[in-house]
């Protein structure tokens, strides 16, 4: 799950960067940026955190 989290966080970054060449529409670019940030946040705060919580000291 940690690896998936890391890869998804990177994908969330690359999505709006690559999309710069796919569209010149400011609205579309804004949407893709927000989508990419959302994906990265989900990966970092959701997947990675969940993976680390499994082995948290207070659960042992």
């Amino acid at each position: 799950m940690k690896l998936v989290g890391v890869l998804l966080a990177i994908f969330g970054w690359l999505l709006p960067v690559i999309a710069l060449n796919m569209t010149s529409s400011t609205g579309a670019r804004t949407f893709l940026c927000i989508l990419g940030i959302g994906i990265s946040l989900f990966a970092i705060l959701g997947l990675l955190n969940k993976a680390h919580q499994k082995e948290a000291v207070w659960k042992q």
Partner: protein
Amino acid sequence: MKRCTWLKPCLWAAIAALLVCSLPAWAQGQTAAPSAPAAAPAPPPIAVDAPLNVSGPTADDLAAGDPSGTKTGTVNDVVHADPTKPLTLIDLVNQAGQNRIAINFTWTLVAGFLVMFMQAGFAIVETGLCRAKNANHTMMMNFMVYGFGLFAYWVCGFAIQMGGSAGATMLGGANPLNHEFAIHLMGHDWGLWGTKGFFLSGATYDVGVMVLFLFQMVFMDTALTIVTGAAAERWKYVAFCVSSVFLGAITYPMFANWAWGGGWLSKLGANYGLGAGYADFAGSGVVHSVGGLTALALAYIVGPRIGKYNRDGSSNAMPGHDMVIVLTGCFILAFGWFGFNPGSTLGASGALRISSIAVDTMLAGCTGSFGAVLYMWIKYGKPDASMSGNGLLAGLVAITAPSGYVNTMGATIIGFIAGLLVCVSVEYIDRVLRVDDPVGAISVHGTNGIWGVISVGLFADGTNGVKGLFYGDPTQLVAQLIGVATLLGFVFTVSYVANVAIHFIVGQRVSASDELEGLDIPEMGALCYPEFVLKPDTSHNGAAASIKAGLQVARETA
């Protein structure tokens, strides 16, 4: 009566003579009116090396003293290119240029010294918010991060960050920093890192480069010291050393190059028409978000302190041991921020907006603490001291990126939102994510650093070349959002992967027995407060059970 018969012919003759005489004047008046002014004669060429006939106070005048100050700072003090010859115009012109750069050098260096002093503020804020049994360890992390960071930055960090920046015109150009490694992709050059300035050797042994190095180095060190707060009270010292060197040598300089060193983020405006490109005036993203997101990665890896969470996942408060030094540290940081933001102009001559930047900085810090106090007072009935300090810092962090681009109203709003945001973020990270951050570094620097980056795209008023959404340019917001995506996707993941690797090599977390004893003796070999009686905190429900469980883990691991 006899009439004068000769008078009439004389009068007519006089009138005719007047008419004849006035005709040329009338004709000249008719044709001269619309004529263009004659071209001014070309000025004689200025002989820049001709001696100027000026003189200042004599030696006898100066020997008499100068109580009024009128005899000091005269033509006598202008440097002659050739002291054996009289003063020339070229001497005056050179002196003017030298004065401008001297003013900018002085301003930037003094601002850098102020930022360096922020290390002391961070050190006592973090130490005060930790328990007394870890005070020596926390101070030592904040103390040595300065040395580790400086060394790493001198070796390669500065070159990666600024080696292709082409220097700064405010500091005389610093032209030796003139090569950026870039890849050509999708029709554009994507600058990735600089290649000049390793060890500050070769042509980068340059006065302008040295000023730039000092100023950028203390910024980098600020990012490094943020991390120590989030991992305090359980971070193994050797892991801290390696992690700090990596952050100062690689992660921070890479993102800083993209934003400030001529890298691809700064070119989004020129290459893709996104406003002025990614704009981060003094580093909400470059400094604070980088530090805050690395702190989050570390907090994941080292895990929460023993006793922080109960078995049902509920959180226990672990108050710091000295609120006096916490709030004193906040004041030191607020003082140092006057170097951080106004100093980022890299000069005072030709950059008089330093006054508005300083006022923006003050306002946002104040409204940040207002927002935090208001939130805590309404929600918990008391104005919490540590959150007041964090609110001040949150406002300062948030205004760091937009301080050069927004007006006072924008700064006030940005700071107030930051003050509310830091409280919400601390609660979310503590209770929902269950990530242990003893000093609130992730919320203060990570969350509000990102808010600061976004706020440029909203509040920038266009006065200084950057215009945000509220002033009519939505494209700037896109550039800022790409910067945020890069912080999350690149900076966080690089920090996370690097620190996981360090964890496998040297281990990131101290043993449970060391943690329960306090890290001063096991890690540092000496107590910070030898006369204090240190005891486990069992004042909170559930904490005692968690500490007992921790002791059990300690016995097993021992």
